[in-house]
């Protein structure tokens, strides 16, 4: 095995954390190039510690490398220090495993997890020596393919990608790579490969589509430009999440990364249907992994990594039907092995407190509630089925159990929000603090006090949610709301026990612009790239003025993208069929405005459309209506 590194010793000695760039981590996969037909570079366009913590890449890395003639390697954004060196010295971006230049690969796959990383994507292309726009690329360039949640509105990035894979990677990559090999054998060239790839379900090839705009800037039409290219692209879903790829031997980084533990994905999707939540709609239907499979994988992954901690991953772990059995198993197995169990996304109730008591020994970390909105009225609007009573009961139990720190997550700027709703944030925080003083007698108070940390983020309407029609607040409105919240909290009786944090407003606005943006934003992104924007997801590198300049130089107005949308407006993302229908989302939008809640998937089918995929929770028995066999089954 060659020990050649892409970076010289001189560079590695000068930069921060050289371990980010040397590869060779435990369980990373090396292959002999003689047996490799397709080289796939998998990229997370952020720094190594963030990228290495992403489960999706680990799953795809495992899946690709299980294919005998495919070698999948990893690449992340070089940190700003190395980025400058590579630009100055003309060092091409390389993959960690082989240390070979990305440009020599067949595919560059980029997972797109959040909007503010778009500038990093352009930097990745530039460092790799790949022309930024897809149409400029020749036969010597890798096929640049995007995936991940932001690809459900790929339009702002459409110019930069050859393909997008819409949906879960497990289903169609084999077919796509086979097509690639066939096309290469026939010598038909890049464009013809893309044309044929566009016919594979779930694959979107932007160059074969044209967007036409009206004079008011909204979309007039969006359609394929060639015969044989599908007008809609339906997302791909792995319906059997038990018998599919999952890494038994995930890569173990040398440095401490954000997710420094075994991650066990217990289910996909969420039954809840919170109206602001994009993931809750995109990953329907809910599909649970078999508990026996999870037990087996948990042990295998712990053995193969040596990690000291295991964490369950899902949008809402409490809703996994076999959770008690799984947790009992893990507690039993982990006790002697001195392995910690971490349980994020649990609803706070008697069961979860009992579990946390068992897994957390005596040291009690803080408990987290996500009411998302301060008043019951607004919680009904967003369909967050958590009541004031639930929260206070949970908090009371927690305080009696010895916890003294509570974290609360809220959003500001939700549709229909009033000052009363915002005041509700302060009042709820106050009531929680009061609960502590009510329930815990003075002599039993650890440290004598309670700490309630209320955090607000700013609401960003996302495609494929019932709020995709909603107006997003401007920066000024956001800031005003944050000040109002702060004032309201300072007026509370227990204000000394409440700490208030809020997020930056300007990045939230831009996130919303990109989330619901169209193809014309490609120009803005190109301009930002020319201006040297990088790591915009990192507060210390984000420069709002540059973004504003780029918009004005391109003759585009950010406010256009955050406006309330007409009910019949054609959206840039409407050509994607994510399973959930536009009719359902519109129904939910109207219900939201009427402050009506909807039952969750386990209680009653809402006819969202995901039943078309033919499995998951849509076809499981429900306590009330008897499930799919009855007339109220999936529509």
């Amino acid at each position, binding site marked *: *095995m060659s*020990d050649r*590194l892409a970076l010289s*010793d*001189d560079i*590695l*000695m*000068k930069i921060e954390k*050289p*371990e980010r760039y*040397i*590869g*060779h*981590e*435990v369980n990373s996969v090396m292959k002999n190039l003689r047996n490799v037909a397709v080289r796939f570079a998998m990229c997370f366009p952020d720094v190594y510690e963030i990228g290495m913590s992403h489960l999706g890449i680990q799953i795809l890395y495992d899946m690709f490398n299980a294919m005998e003639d495919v070698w999948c390697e990893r690449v992340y954004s070089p940190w700003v220090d190395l980025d400058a060196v590579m630009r100055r010295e003309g060092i091409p971006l390389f993959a960690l495993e082989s240390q070979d230049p990305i440009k020599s690969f067949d595919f560059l796959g980029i997972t797109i997890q959040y909007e503010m990383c778009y500038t990093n994507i352009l930097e990745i292309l530039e460092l790799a020596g790949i022309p930024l726009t897809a149409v400029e690329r020749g036969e010597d360039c890798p096929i640049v393919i995007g995936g991940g949640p932001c690809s459900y509105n790929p339009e702002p990035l459409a110019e930069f990608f050859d393909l997008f894979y819409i949906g879960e990677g497990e289903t169609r990559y084999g077919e796509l790579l086979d097509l690639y090999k066939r096309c290469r054998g026939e010598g038909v060239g890049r464009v013809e490969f893309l044309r044929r790839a566009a016919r594979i379900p779930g694959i979107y090839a932007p160059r074969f589509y044209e967007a036409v705009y009206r004079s008011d800037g909204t979309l007039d039409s969006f359609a394929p430009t060639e015969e044989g290219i599908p007008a809609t692209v339906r997302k791909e879903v792995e319906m059997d999440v038990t018998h599919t790829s999952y890494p038994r031997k995930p890569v*173990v980084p*040398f*440095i*401490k990364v954000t997710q420094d533990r075994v991650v066990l994905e217990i289910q996909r999707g969420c039954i809840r249907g919170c109206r602001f939540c994009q993931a809750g709609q995109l990953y329907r239907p809910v599909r649970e992994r078999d508990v026996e499979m999870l037990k087996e994988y948990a042990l295998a992954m*712990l*053995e*193969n*990594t*040596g*990690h*000291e901690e295991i964490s369950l991953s899902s949008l809402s772990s409490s809703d996994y039907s076999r959770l008690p059995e799984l947790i009992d198993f893990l507690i039993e197995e982990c006790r002697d*092995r*001195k392995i910690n169990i971490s349980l994020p996304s649990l609803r706070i109730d008697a069961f979860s407190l009992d579990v946390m008591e068992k897994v957390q*020994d*005596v*040291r009690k970390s803080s408990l987290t509630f996500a009411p998302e909105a301060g008043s019951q009225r607004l919680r009904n609007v967003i369909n967050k089925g958590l009541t004031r009573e639930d929260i206070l009961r949970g908090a009371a139990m927690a305080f009696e159990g010895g916890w003294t720190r509570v974290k609360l997550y809220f959003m500001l700027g939700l549709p229909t929000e009033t000052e009363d709703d915002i005041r509700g944030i302060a009042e709820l925080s106050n009531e929680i603090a009061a609960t502590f003083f009510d329930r815990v007698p003075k002599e039993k108070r650890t440290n004598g006090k309670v700490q309630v940390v209320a955090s607000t983020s700013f609401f960003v309407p996302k495609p494929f949610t019932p709020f995709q029609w909603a107006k997003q607040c401007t920066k000024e409105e956001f800031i005003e709301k944050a000040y109002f919240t702060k004032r309201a909290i300072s007026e509370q009786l227990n204000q000394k026990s409440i700490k208030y944090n809020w997020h930056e407003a300007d990045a939230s606005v831009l996130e919303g612009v990109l989330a619901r943006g169209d193809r014309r934003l490609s120009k803005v992104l190109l301009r930002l790239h020319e201006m040297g924007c990088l790591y915009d997801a990192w507060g210390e590198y984000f420069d709002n003025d540059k973004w504003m300049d780029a918009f004005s130089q391109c003759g585009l107005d950010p406010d256009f993208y955050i406006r309330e949308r007409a009910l019949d407006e054609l959206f840039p993302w409407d050509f994607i069929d994510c399973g959930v229908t536009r009719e359902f989302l519109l129904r939910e939008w109207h219900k939201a405005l009427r402050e009506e809640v909807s039952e969750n998937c386990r209680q009653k089918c809402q006819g969202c459309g995901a039943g078309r995929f033919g499995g998951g929770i849509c076809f499981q028995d429900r306590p009330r209506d008897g499930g799919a066999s009855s007339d109220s089954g999936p529509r």
Partner: protein
Amino acid sequence: MVLRVKFRKYGRVRFIGHLDVMRFFQKANRRAGLDMAYTAGFSPHQIMSFAAPLGVGLESNGEYMDIQVNSLTSCMDVRNRLNGVSVPGIEVVSVKILPKDAGNAMASVAAASYTVRFREGREPDFLRETPMEQALERFLCKDSIRIVKETKKSVRQVDLKPGIYRLTWDGEALHMLVDASSGGNIKPVQVLEALLSDYQEKLKENALWVTREDTFARVEGEGEQRFQPLDGIGMDDGQYAASQAREREKEGNFG
């Protein structure tokens, strides 16, 4: 019982920092299925101790860690298992069982030996006029070798002279044995900087290729005999079996 594990670190893993090497072994010990002993308390940790930390970018043929285990198959088995779950460039050379009264690896460190080469084109300029042998002779004859040591908290003068136990040149590389104790640790680069300063010269950027050859504890003796590699004590499988047999015999005599 406590095992002293000697390992090498070379190739690209030179760029892994000391704390991450510790993390690496915590996970490797688990992967290898070693029956590790843990600290008591709310957050149990493997009981382990590392000898002198190695700077980023340096290679080593003589790194040490002590680990405490509850049970042991054999030293050879531990070595093979660890190497079976390691990465290229981190290689366990030997495993020995420490006697009960041995100090831990960290506390025992007294000295370390290094081989130091100049990277191509980064040799000191003075070598064009003065042969290295001559420069070293002059350097080592000085009463004191003062350098300024800058830490986060303070700037102070220290004398390297008492801590340089050996310094020779073989025509291609420098070989040195220097103090590596927690109070007086000397880095090879400090020695070279001091040497060059005699010629009003500064080291060129990243000029040195440094290999730590071994790490030493202090024992009874004179001169260099005062120092013994950290694996100079402890028993391999054969010695341990013999000592167990002697113990049993002793017990038998008294029983």
